[in-house]
């Protein structure tokens, strides 16, 4: 018999980053009993690391800017599998969401006229690609994520949101009808496990870059929400689409913002050549991230890489001068000195494409409602389950996200989920209570770890998983190599199922948290691997040596991975925006 204590909320938001806090703010303002459950104190969430800015047509740098141009860039950037209704919603609602952040106190940098500073970022254009480079990314120096996250946390304090800080969500609880009615969660400080009951469970758990050995992501980015949803049997969309950011610091993996290139920096090879002029004659260093990352790898593979091993390239910034660097990129100067031992005012920064962002995730509609698909290929809403932010796949990023669109995604869709849940709660939601056995099945894996009494070590298995992903599912992919990767992951899954948690203590047991995270990394890695192996084309971030071309006949589709059968199905991309004409797929050049 379960004798767990239970906590009851109208809405529980799992994750305290940008999207979770934005959703929570909306609900707290409405007076709904809302809690944010986060495994770290909210300002330690990975949103804090976002640097360059939030892309949005607020028409500050250019009074004629238009959200439709931003939408065009987003759809093209996503290589045409971004949903056009969702992209339309994000780009048109964006200005409202950004102005709200400013009103909440976000310390944006400013132009002389007092308006918000905007800088050029990759993949941005005016007039549907015809008017040259746009400057559309709103920035607070190069600490925009930090400023945004703190502002949202502060405004949640103002609105009395309940915080369960340093609590870890273990698994979703489903009732007999398959509705999500809450989760099992553990207070990290005491080790107490509770049943959190809620009519709306929002997965705002962010990304999972830690499936790769080299990533810009925080150590906490282990795909906990993705793992929970997969174990509960729900499908994942476009999991093969992982963004490799062109400028991770060589060796350390820490991010150097695209804003460096937006401010006029550029990449050079060992001959000092600005090689992006060859690959993207118009946009050059501000082409889409997938394009720049591939070009860098090509330079390295063709022997023009820098350093003793020729395994990276350089980002040149010294020509910008100390004043611009100090004013616009102060954080980058700090990071370069700390992690590359380079002063960018004097020397170039060694950089290499590094795993950065998960375009895929839990399929949702624009209200954050999770979606599944029946055997005939029809969409259905999953009752009680919502997702927003990087954990969700709305999809506005398609096969490749544009720089600055992640922060916009967080606030627009966090806000949208909050608004939708508020009205759904007002209309009334009734789900069947979870039974004892429903709760027990959600307790299964924490019980498994707590009863483990031998087996392999958690850090070693994690390192192995990261190596498999790095080796077989990187910037360029190929069938045989991926098949080996899938096979190795399959073996790894059974070894993880028998791994050992040596420390069974209750108080702040971080080893237990890492054990639970390892299960989630495994789920994300396998979904990624199977989707990558089966998408027989190259699109956006998914580049295959053996299928080098985009295949719009067969693959102008989302992929949908089903965990029970490990099958990959397809789902239609939305080509029906409400207020603008459809952007038809074109050859994607920069």
């Amino acid at each position, binding site marked *: 018999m379960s004798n767990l204590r239970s906590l009851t909320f109208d809405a529980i938001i799992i994750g305290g980053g940008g999207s979770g806090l934005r959703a929570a703010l909306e609900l707290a303002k409405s007076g709904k009993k809302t809690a944010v459950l986060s495994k770290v*104190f909210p300002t330690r969430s990975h949103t*804090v*690391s976002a640097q360059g800015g939030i892309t949005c047509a607020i028409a500050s740098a250019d009074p004629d800017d238009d959200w439709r141009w931003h939408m065009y860039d987003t759809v093209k950037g996503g290589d045409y599998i971004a949903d056009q209704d969702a992209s339309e919603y994000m780009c048109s609602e964006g200005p409202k969401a950004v*102005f709200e952040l400013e*009103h909440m106190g976000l310390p944006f940098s400013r132009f002389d006229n007092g308006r918000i500073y905007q800088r050029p970022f990759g993949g941005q254009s005016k007039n549907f690609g015809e008017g040259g480079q746009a400057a559309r990314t709103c920035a607070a120096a190069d600490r925009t994520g930090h400023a945004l996250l703190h502002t949202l946390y502060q405004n949640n304090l103002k609105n009395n949101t309940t915080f369960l800080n340093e609590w870890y969500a273990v698994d979703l609880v489903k009732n007999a009808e398959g509705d999500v009615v809450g989760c099992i969660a553990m207070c990290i400080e005491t080790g107490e496990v509770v049943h959190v009951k809620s009519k709306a469970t929002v997965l705002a758990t962010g990304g999972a870059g830690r499936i790769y050995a080299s990533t810009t992501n*925080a*150590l906490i980015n282990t795909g906990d929400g993705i793992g929970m949803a997969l174990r509960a049997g729900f499908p994942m969309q476009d999991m093969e689409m992982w963004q490799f950011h062109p400028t991770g610091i060589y060796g350390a993996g820490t991010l150097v913002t695209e804003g460096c290139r937006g401010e006029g920096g550029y990449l050079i090879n060992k001959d000092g050549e600005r090689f992006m002029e060859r690959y993207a004659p118009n946009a050059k260093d501000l082409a889409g991230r997938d394009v720049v990352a591939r070009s860098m790898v090509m330079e390295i593979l063709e022997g023009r890489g820098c350093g003793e091993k020729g395994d990276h390239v350089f980002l040149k910034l010294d020509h910008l001068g100390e004043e611009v660097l100090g004013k616009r990129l102060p954080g980058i100067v700090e990071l370069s000195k700390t992690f590359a031992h380079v002063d960018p005012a004097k020397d170039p920064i060694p950089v290499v494409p590094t795993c950065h962002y998960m375009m895929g995730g839990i399929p949702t509609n624009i209200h954050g409602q999770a979606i599944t698909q029946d055997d005939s290929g029809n969409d259905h809403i999953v009752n009680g389950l919502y997702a927003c932010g990087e954990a969700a796949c709305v999809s506005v990023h398609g096969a490749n996200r544009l720089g600055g669109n992640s922060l916009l995604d967080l606030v627009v869709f966090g806000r949208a989920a909050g608004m939708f849940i508020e009205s759904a709660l007002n209309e009334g939601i009734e789900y069947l209570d979870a039974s004892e056995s429903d709760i027990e099945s959600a307790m299964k894996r924490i019980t498994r770890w707590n009863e483990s009494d031998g087996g392999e070590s958690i*850090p070693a298995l994690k390192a192995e998983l990261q190596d498999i992903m790095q080796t077989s599912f990187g910037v360029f992919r190929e069938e045989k190599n991926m098949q080996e990767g899938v096979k190795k992951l399959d073996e790894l899954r059974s070894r993880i199922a028998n791994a050992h948690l040596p420390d069974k203590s209750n108080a702040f047991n*971080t080893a237990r948290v890492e054990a639970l995270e390892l299960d989630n990394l495994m789920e994300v890695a396998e979904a990624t691997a199977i989707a990558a192996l089966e998408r027989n084309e190259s699109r956006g971030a998914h580049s295959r040596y053996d299928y080098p071309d985009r295949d719009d006949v067969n693959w102008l589709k989302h992929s949908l991975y089903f965990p029970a059968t490990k099958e990959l199905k397809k789902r239609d991309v939305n080509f029906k925006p409400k207020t603008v004409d459809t952007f038809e797929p074109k050859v994607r050049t920069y």
Partner: protein
Amino acid sequence: MSNLQVSVYRYNPETDSAPYMQEFQVDTKGRDVMVLDVLHMMKEQDSGLAFRRSCREGVCGSDGMNMNGKNGLACITPLSDVVKGNKLTLRPLPGLPVIRDMVVDMALFYKQYERIQPYLQNDEPAPAIERLQSPEERDKLDGLYECILCACCSTSCPSFWWNPDKFVGPAGLLQSYRFLADSRDNATSERLTDLEDPFSVFRCRGIMNCVAVCPKGLNPTRAIGKIREMLLADAT
């Protein structure tokens, strides 16, 4: 190259009646790694070792700790900055209750942050676009808004050790001034009234430990000085 000798503070409330220092030998292969990397190597030897970490690049503020006597962030502190004679002593941030090993209870620290109402207050209706702010007005927030709430400053401050319930402490006061200095905030007089008692601000004795340890290079003492000036001007 001999192994690095690390002495680390251990305390598990379930099994230890008192805290103790545990010795580790860590083979860094001669590399000048970060203190956080050393903690991860120790955790591979003893998975029970508890510490907080997240971004590993100095922006999230999780891994503030005391390294050879000085507070700082483990993830951006290379061994060459702190290690003397091949020895490294790691202790939790001083002055706060210890939950386990390097993990402290930060409730008092957060309470002082919340106390200063760390959010923009402006009761005038917001415009349809952003509120305008000149670059010069915005410059006044530099050196203030960048705080990451790591608590290195407040836990190196004797006034905070002595009165953590009544003295706001350098981190909270830095944020207090961040809003006092913001041209968009119009709650200045309420904010000042809330700080005019003998403890909240005036327990700062200007010894500048906070400035010496801030991993982001911020200057809470200067911000506290500015608040004092505003309080004094307000009183006359």
